[in-house]
């Protein structure tokens, strides 16, 4: 689905964030990008989200080099990707419902369809009863789950998450990761950047380890036993 082919990214000022990184992301993959801060995890996510452009190398999505995608085509491209952020990036002046609805409003769905899908997404993250609340009145874990509902509501093929558990304690982090696992099980390709190696190890999937902008190693682990209930077939 996505191929990074010897991608190098130089930031302004000459800092080399990625050097000759090649990575294949296949449909249905659950990939953890791990490594110390500054290893290049976020840069890979930013390149895939086209927040940054590769300096050298090719970034192919469905065989098309999106490194050269015209700016005007970026919005439509981004609508195929769900994004989860460490600071969740919710809008405080809107209810949880309206936050989750935003991608559908952008996509121009009808009100009825939007309503239905937002409820389904909030149900999937276990927040159906709190749709009218402002994000500020929700706990950190709930806020992140609203962020995840927003990321999946438009039914993206790929979900990318940048340190989604960075602000959460161990138990809440595990809940979030299990949520991701469940989405993966119903077919969403996942790419998660995290520095929490232990947590990633408990979930299982492909573990891509970055070090100082280079691909250090990749290993595959088997998922630890975990409850599979709660996610309906999509």
């Amino acid at each position: 689905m996505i191929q990074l082919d010897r991608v190098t990214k130089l930031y302004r000022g000459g800092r080399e964030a990625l050097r000759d990184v090649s990575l294949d992301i296949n449909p249905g993959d659950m990939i953890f990008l791990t490594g110390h801060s500054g290893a290049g995890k976020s840069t890979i996510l930013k390149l895939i989200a086209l927040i940054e452009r590769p300096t050298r190398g090719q970034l192919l999505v469905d065989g098309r080099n999106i490194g050269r995608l015209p700016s005007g085509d970026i919005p439509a491209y981004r609508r195929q990707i769900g994004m989860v952020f460490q600071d969740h990036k919710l809008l405080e002046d809107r209810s949880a419902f309206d936050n989750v609805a935003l991608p559908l409003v952008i996509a121009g769905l009808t009100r009825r369809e939007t309503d239905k899908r937002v409820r389904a997404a909030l149900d999937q993250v276990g927040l159906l009863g709190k749709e009218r609340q402002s994000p500020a009145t929700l706990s950190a874990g709930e806020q992140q789950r609203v962020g995840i509902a927003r990321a999946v509501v438009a039914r993206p093929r790929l979900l990318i998450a940048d340190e989604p558990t960075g602000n959460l304690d161990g138990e809440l982090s595990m809940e979030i990761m299990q949520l991701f696992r469940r989405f993966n099980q119903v077919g969403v390709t996942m790419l998660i950047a995290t520095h929490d190696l232990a947590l990633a190890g408990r979930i299982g999937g492909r573990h891509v380890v970055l070090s100082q902008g280079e691909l250090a190693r990749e290993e595959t682990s088997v998922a630890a036993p975990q409850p599979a209930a709660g996610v309906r077939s999509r």
Partner: protein
Amino acid sequence: MKAVLVRHLQNALGALGQLSRQPVSTALTIAVIGIALALPAGLQVLVQGAQRFAGSWQEIRDFSVYLRPGTTLAQAKALAEELGKRAVIEEVRVIAANEALADFRADPAFGDALRVLEDNPLPHTLVIRPDAAATTTDLDALRSELSARDDVDLVQLDTQWLSRLAAILDLVRRGVWFTAVLLAGAVIVIVGNTIRLDIQNRRREIEVSKLLGASDAFVRRPFLYIGAWYGILGGLLAVVVLSLGLLLLGGPLSRLLALYGGQFTGFGVDLATIVLVFGGGLLAGWAGAWVAVARHLSAIEPRV
């Protein structure tokens, strides 16, 4: 197509809701725009009123053609009939010499003096009323032509003051347009600045929307609608202010103008002015939003 219309309607109503959430700053902005629009519109209404007033002075454009003594009444009538057919002339009235004399005799100031005279010293006279559409140039041409005739003694026509009035009105009219253009520019700047602040306040929302795949058009649309609303609401205020102003000034103005003998038809905000105020407001508000959006929106790119 229907979905697009629905979305625009939602955007329009959403923008209105956005404005209603900051009632004080919205009211202030609308007040400034309303005043800026009411000023040239008010001047325009005054000029229109003055033009109608000047038009009601039509009889002052009448002029007298004194025929050479010895011209017969039949000749005078023939000439009157001939002139009456011209496009620039609305009607020609013949005042026969004996009618004129009777008029003068009836006047106590002249009566006694005229009784002494044996012969009627007055010539036959044609009173010409030009057509309403006739310009001063037409009248000048007509005067030269008539003066050159053998059977015409004197043409008495005073178009000079009419020319002056027309020139003054023309000047004022241009002044109104100039003012209107200046104030439209002011509206664009006001709305542009307001929208700029709005964009800054909603920076986060714009960033997040762009991250979620919002196109530039999607991000831009609410701000353009806000600008348009500012213009429309400012226009509404302008029409209200204008109507109030005319209500206050209308009475004294009619009395003043009546003293000048004009037939005053009254001032009113006509439909064209209302359309102009609303259209101008809408266009200026929208343009102001465009300027702000074009300058500031593209600068906001999501940083993660």
